[in-house]
């Protein structure tokens, strides 16, 4: 029984059904946010130290996320938070009425950083709808391509986007007492990364000049080059299609690919050692750091990297092939793994728009999924995207992001969810490189150019906070690398067996009605593409991105999104400020950036009228908002 809030139960065969006697099973109460507003006003009267702090942009990724918070500087508390996606993503509207073969190419444009994952999620979605099973090598090559994207994204975030928050320059400016301690704090992972003290690491995390920062820039290039060897180009690869990939691959290609990937053998070890040392040091410095960005560990991941022996693209078998993925799908609620079945994840999904710039839709075409499991009217297969631009008001509508929930809870998405769920589930297929223990993930990284082979182990943490998100992300680099190796070995084996086919031809039926879903993951986690195909054209297309999940506005019943809740719980540990003028909000930013925000996923296109698409920029700003 994995649902606590939705009235869904299961029969002995594991089929879901709606609890009998519940009159309106998907009904919900909406609650205005005015109560909170009143409390804030009362506090402001009592305490003159309230400051409104706006961060716009906060993403360090194109800046389409604004974040508003009200901080009590005297008490070091955060009183109010609002995350706002400032631009509209119109891919759902653009794709409506198009040929399904266009979906992978167009949806790829949803992000300039991780377009390939959108292509793949789209391909999976079409494959499911039309029953297209790729050949084994096509599946394996797709896995390798995915790995390259993650090997770009995760180090980039750790050292270039989020890393500067832990650098000498930032720490000195915000918490000089921490910098003082860092200078004498020994770095336990010296054998792996070469640094004597934490201060030395912090210096090399300095943006633009730090060796770790510059090294990460270089490693992102290696990852992209590896991608291009197999995928032809990046961004927006055109080699990923429903049915596999369109690239011609020889043993030489795989050898060249291996040469690129092997550069990560030592780098992955270093990533883990660096961040283990830095985060443990922060905890030692001040236990309050454990509260930064702390919320209960509630997260979802679809799992990634299909196993070529099991993936058949069908919804009917998705629980079987899903659980054979190299990272395991699942839902963790309050630190407890409640399911690893893709159908359960899918059935519990809903999207709400009460605090977003969208109209509510009336249609409810799919009461159940293809297996007969019940679906909410707010499920992506039932959703229609109807943009409704309007004034910003924290009490009403303030974001272009929708509010995705699972079992009526907002949840987190991230590379860390991939590690967390895989570690807990003990379902990863056997591999010489990694093993799930139920409470940890064991990672065996081969010898690299300078470092010997290493056995690393990520443990499910006691608390879930900004530091643990980033720590798990560092281990995710190693996990990605090892899944890549596993799949590369499989690619060589398939070639030896004469399996060289990389795509399955297919045709779009001119008549008929089908639905499909691409359950996949971006570097930043959870990614779903739900499609409906009617008489050869896309009748509906819905994308839920990781940043939509994490940056969502409050639910209709008043629960904040993950960013909002994580920042609300964050204490102000920053010390080097006198008043709001020199307050930098580093603790808020650490909490936010631990989610690896990427809002281009929710940007780019604005619709005028019903289905007309025009490219426009939308002038919005969190400053001075109502």
């Amino acid at each position, binding site marked *: 029984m994995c649902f606590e809030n939705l009235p869904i139960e299961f029969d002995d065969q594991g089929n879901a059904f709606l609890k009998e006697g519940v009159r309106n099973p998907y009904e919900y109460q909406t609650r205005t946010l005015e109560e909170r507003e009143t409390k804030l006003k009362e506090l402001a009267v009592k305490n003159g130290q309230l400051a409104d702090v706006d961060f*716009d*942009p906060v993403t*360090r*990724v*194109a*800046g*389409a996320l*604004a974040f508003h918070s009200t901080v009590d500087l005297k008490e070091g508390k955060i009183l109010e938070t609002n995350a706002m996606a*400032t*631009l509209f993503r119109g891919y759902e509207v653009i794709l409506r009425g198009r040929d399904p073969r266009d979906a992978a190419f167009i949806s790829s444009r949803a*992000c*300039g*950083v991780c377009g390939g994952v959108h292509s793949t999620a789209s391909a999976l979605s079409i494959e499911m709808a039309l029953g297209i099973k790729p050949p084994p090598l096509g599946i394996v090559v797709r896995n390798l391509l995915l790995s390259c994207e993650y090997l770009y994204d995760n180090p*980039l975030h750790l050292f*270039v*986007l989020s890393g*500067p928050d832990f650098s000498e*320059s930032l720490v000195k400016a915000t918490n000089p007492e921490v910098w003082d301690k860092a200078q004498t704090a020994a770095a336990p992972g010296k054998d792996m990364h070469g640094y004597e003290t934490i201060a030395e690491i912090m210096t090399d995390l300095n*943006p*633009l*000049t730090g060796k770790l920062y510059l090294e990460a*820039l*270089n490693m*992102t*290039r290696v990852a992209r080059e590896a991608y291009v060897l197999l995928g032809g180009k990046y*961004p*927006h690869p055109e080699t990923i299609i429903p049915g596999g990939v369109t690239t011609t691959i020889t043993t030489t290609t795989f050898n060249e690919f291996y040469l690129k990937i092997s550069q990560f053998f030592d780098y992955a070890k270093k990533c883990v050692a660096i961040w283990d040392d830095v985060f443990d040091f922060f905890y030692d410095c001040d236990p309050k750091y454990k509260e930064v960005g702390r919320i209960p560990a509630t997260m979802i991941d679809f799992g990634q990297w299909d196993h070529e022996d099991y993936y058949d693209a069908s919804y009917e078998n998705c629980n079987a092939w899903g659980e054979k993925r190299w990272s395991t799908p699942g839902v963790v609620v309050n630190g407890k793994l409640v399911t690893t079945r893709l159908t359960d994840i899918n059935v519990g999904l809903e999207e709400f728009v009460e605090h977003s710039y969208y109209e509510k839709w009336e249609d409810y075409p799919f009461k159940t999924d293809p297996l007969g499991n019940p679906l909410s009217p707010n499920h992506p297969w039932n959703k229609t995207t109807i943009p409704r631009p309007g004034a910003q008001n924290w009490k009403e509508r303030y974001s272009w992001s929708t509010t995705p929930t699972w079992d009526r809870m907002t949840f987190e998405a991230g590379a860390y969810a991939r590690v967390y769920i895989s570690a807990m589930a003990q379902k990863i297929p056997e591999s010489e490189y990694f093993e799930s223990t139920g409470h940890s993930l064991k990672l065996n990284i081969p010898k690299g150019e300078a470092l010997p082979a290493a056995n690393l182990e990520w443990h499910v943490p006691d608390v879930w906070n900004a530091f643990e998100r980033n720590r798990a992300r560092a281990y995710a680099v190693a996990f990605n690398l090892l899944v890549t190796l596993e799949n590369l070995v499989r690619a060589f084996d398939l070639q030896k067996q004469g399996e060289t086919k990389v795509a399955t031809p297919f045709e779009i039926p001119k008549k008929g009605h089908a639905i499909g879903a691409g359950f996949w993951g971006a570097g930043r986690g959870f990614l779903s593409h739900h499609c409906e195909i009617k008489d050869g054209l896309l009748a509906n297309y819905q994308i839920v991105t990781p940043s939509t999940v994490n940056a969502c506005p409050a639910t209709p019943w008043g629960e904040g999104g993950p960013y909002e809740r994580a920042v609300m719980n964050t204490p102000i540990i920053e010390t080097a400020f006198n008043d709001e003028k020199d307050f930098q909000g580093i603790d808020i930013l650490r909490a936010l950036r631990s989610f690896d925000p*990427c*809002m*281009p996923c929710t*940007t780019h296109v604005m619709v005028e009228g019903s289905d007309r*698409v*025009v*490219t*426009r*920029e*939308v*002038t*919005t*700003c969190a400053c001075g908002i109502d």
Partner: protein
Amino acid sequence: MAQPRVTIGIVGYSAVVDSYPLGPKLMRDLEAALQDAPHVSVENFTWSPVHVVQRFQDGELERPDRIVLVGLAAESAAPGTVAAYRWRGGHQPEAKVQERVYEAVTGIVDLENTLMIGSYFDVWPSECFTVEADLAPDTFGRLVMAENEGRASPEKLEIELGYAPDKIREKLVAQVTTLAMKGVDAQNSTVTDKTADMLCPVRSFAETHVANAAGG
């Protein structure tokens, strides 16, 4: 006397519609205009500025004696015009350069980011020029829509935009070619100096880049 090695870097949009003045046709037109000038290479710089820098640092691209970067003006003040600048360098605070790198590594292609990041990592020669097309922020969207709706004739586009995109491209080609061939010798009153402190600050992607507009 040996000819100087010249690189033209197009910080444009190589995968968009032909009618867009900084689209794929610009590269073809420049290559055609410079076919008799083997010392001039036309390169696609429609990449992350960090990647552009890495190509120079790794020796994948030879460091030229002169470079002309061509792209979109960061701010729109007089749509339909083309301006040329000589880059005189200068410093920005590291935090400001970081903001440009953050954009660069996450997929933003931008002329001024390329200029500043290249300058920070010291990849530009002393003769460094930019040629910038001033296009209103919604130009690309309008051109795509016009193409989709079958009304992309030069005459109709000129009426819709208030200027002819073809003419912008012609101006770009003329100005770029002149600077590539003559460099500082071609510098006159129409080529003004540009320094780091004149660059538009990195702003929220949500803010419309129009000069003098409220909140812009």
